[in-house]
């Protein structure tokens, strides 16, 4: 059941409960793909923990397994072995129906190419995830308006994606991701298709969502400029977790970033 919410009503809080200490925990996660007759190991025995209410980035060269890791966290992919827990719930053992319901409740996804539905207006695109809830039409309207207002697009509700700039489209995508008040926002290269100015605006918006509303945001990025916006950077290389940096300082191995066995 979706918690009724409004961005205006949300109060920042510093009370982090024990459960929320680790928004994401990966324990010995391996993900292997079959490519023709070859097995490709995208993630190799990864164990890491992402604290709640942080804005973190997963970085690394192409093919390092960033997006695979993000997909596992978002529950749209399954680990070949190991455990994935998000918000205290073990998702690696859920079946298709359970994981769909879980995604609807806990995950807000932002893609590199926005992936808005072209035949729907900004309002209707943002409303889409709310169709899975029990909210009635007027409640959905309240939520959508609040989300679009939060991303600064209250005056573009009736616009179709083709009538918006790339930056505006990504803002709509972010509004769609936050409208259900998810536990975690996962963003896959959210600035990858934007010019420098729009990219900075999007990163500022994500920072604002994190700082004002304490949303946990896990972002995959190539862009080194993103580092100054995030609190922790997790680095991957060839499917292996090579370390994390907090505030520009190398912190690996750090107990707080390691999953509790």
């Amino acid at each position, binding site marked *: 059941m979706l918690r009724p919410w409004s961005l205006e009503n949300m109060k920042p809080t510093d009370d982090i409960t024990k459960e929320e200490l680790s928004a994401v925990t990966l324990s010995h996660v391996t993900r292997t793909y079959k490519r023709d007759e070859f097995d490709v190991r995208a993630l190799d025995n990864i164990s890491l923990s992402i604290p709640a209410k942080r804005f973190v980035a997963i970085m690394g060269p192409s093919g390092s397994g960033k997006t695979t890791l993000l*997909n596992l966290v*978002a529950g*749209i*992919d399954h680990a070949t072995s190991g455990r994935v827990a998000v918000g205290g719930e073990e998702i690696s053992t859920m079946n*298709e*129906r359970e994981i*769909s*319901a*879980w*995604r*609807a*409740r806990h*995950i807000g*996804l932002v*893609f*590199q*190419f926005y*992936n808005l*539905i*072209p*035949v*729907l207006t900004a309002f*209707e695109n943002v409303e*889409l*995830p709310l*169709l*899975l809830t029990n909210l009635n*039409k007027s409640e959905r309207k309240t939520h959508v308006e609040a989300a679009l207002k939060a991303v600064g697009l209250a005056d573009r509700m009736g616009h179709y994606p083709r009538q918006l700039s790339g930056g505006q489209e990504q803002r709509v995508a972010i509004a*769609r991701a936050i409208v259900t008040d998810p536990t975690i926002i996962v963003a896959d290269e959210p600035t990858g298709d934007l010019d420098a100015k729009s990219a900075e605006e999007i990163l500022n918006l994500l920072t604002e969502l994190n700082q004002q509303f304490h949303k946990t945001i896990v972002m995959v990025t190539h862009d080194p400029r993103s580092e100054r916006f995030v609190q922790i950077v997790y680095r991957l290389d060839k499917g292996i977790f090579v370390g994390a940096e907090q505030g520009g300082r190398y912190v690996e191995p750090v107990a707080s970033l390691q999953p509790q066995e």
Partner: protein
Amino acid sequence: MTKYALLIFKNLLRSKRRTILTIISIAVSLFIFALLVSLPTFVNQVLADTSSSVRISCHTKMGWDYPLPEAYRVKVAATPHVVAVATAVFFGGIYHEASDQFPSIATDPETFADVFSDWGLSGVDQFKKIKTACLVAQGTMRRFNLHVGQQIQIRGTLFPVNLTLNIVGTVANAPSQDFLIFRSDYFEEAVGNPHIVDIFWVKVDDSRNLPQVAAALDRQFANSSSETRSESEAAFVGSIFARVGIFLKVAELIGLVVVVAIGLVAANTAAMSIRERRGEIAVMRSMGFPSRVIFLLLIAESLAIALIGGALGCSAAFGLLKVFSLNADILGPIVMLRIPPVVLGEAMVVAMLIGLLSACIPAYSASRRNIVETLRMID
């Protein structure tokens, strides 16, 4: 499902041209289906309607195209359980142009109304009094804009004479709405007293006596120069339709073939439409839309297109026959084609099946496709 209505509607309008063309193709196929399947269905209905008739058709063994001697009438009328006898001779005839043909039948003015009392006759008294009188079926009245009191001329086709007839009344409730009857004494006089009858229509006191009266009639004329074959009205009508039985079967088959062909076209269109949206479907699933909901949304789109097409096709078929009152001359004088409600229902069920089956496989496959693979593909 109502909260998804807007999403379904907007997806239908995604490619207006494709949606409209698909609707039209389904409408055309259902139009053809409704028309062709109506033929045998309507025939069956007419046969069912005549099953309670207490009339017997008595004609030669060779078929009702060959005449019997009029002298048989006395013996026919004297057969036990016979209530009334009316003769019928097919005159043919053309009104104005060669295309203005309809069955013209010479009959007994005195007994016709007794034998066909259920046909809603008007002007019977005048018909009995005036030698040149005729009664015209209401469909023919409308077709040629005729009115009671009008004098018309019929040019003979089977008999080389022209007849001048005065319309004194109409026939409202006959199975066919396109024919004319006139007096047999006028016919005899005009063509030189041939004293022939194509069919003796015999009214029996009770439907249970039909078989025994028919057998008695045929027994009386056995081994004569013109042996008879007597059969109930239902069997008689059935024998007429048997002449076009192959045509009816072919019509039914063509109707089905058209539907299957359009069903395959609709399936291809649905597959294309769904394939184009694989990325969007993957995004919706990543948001948490269950496969079941995605599947139902895609099926609902296809169903909406098919039902709109079906409704348009059925309405067009029904309206066309209603407005123009197309006569099924090919089926003879007994029937006038119209689309029975059961065929409209069948056509809508067929439309529904087209909608369901055409999208079923692509929708199922799209709703279960691997999200990560699909997202990687569209990126």
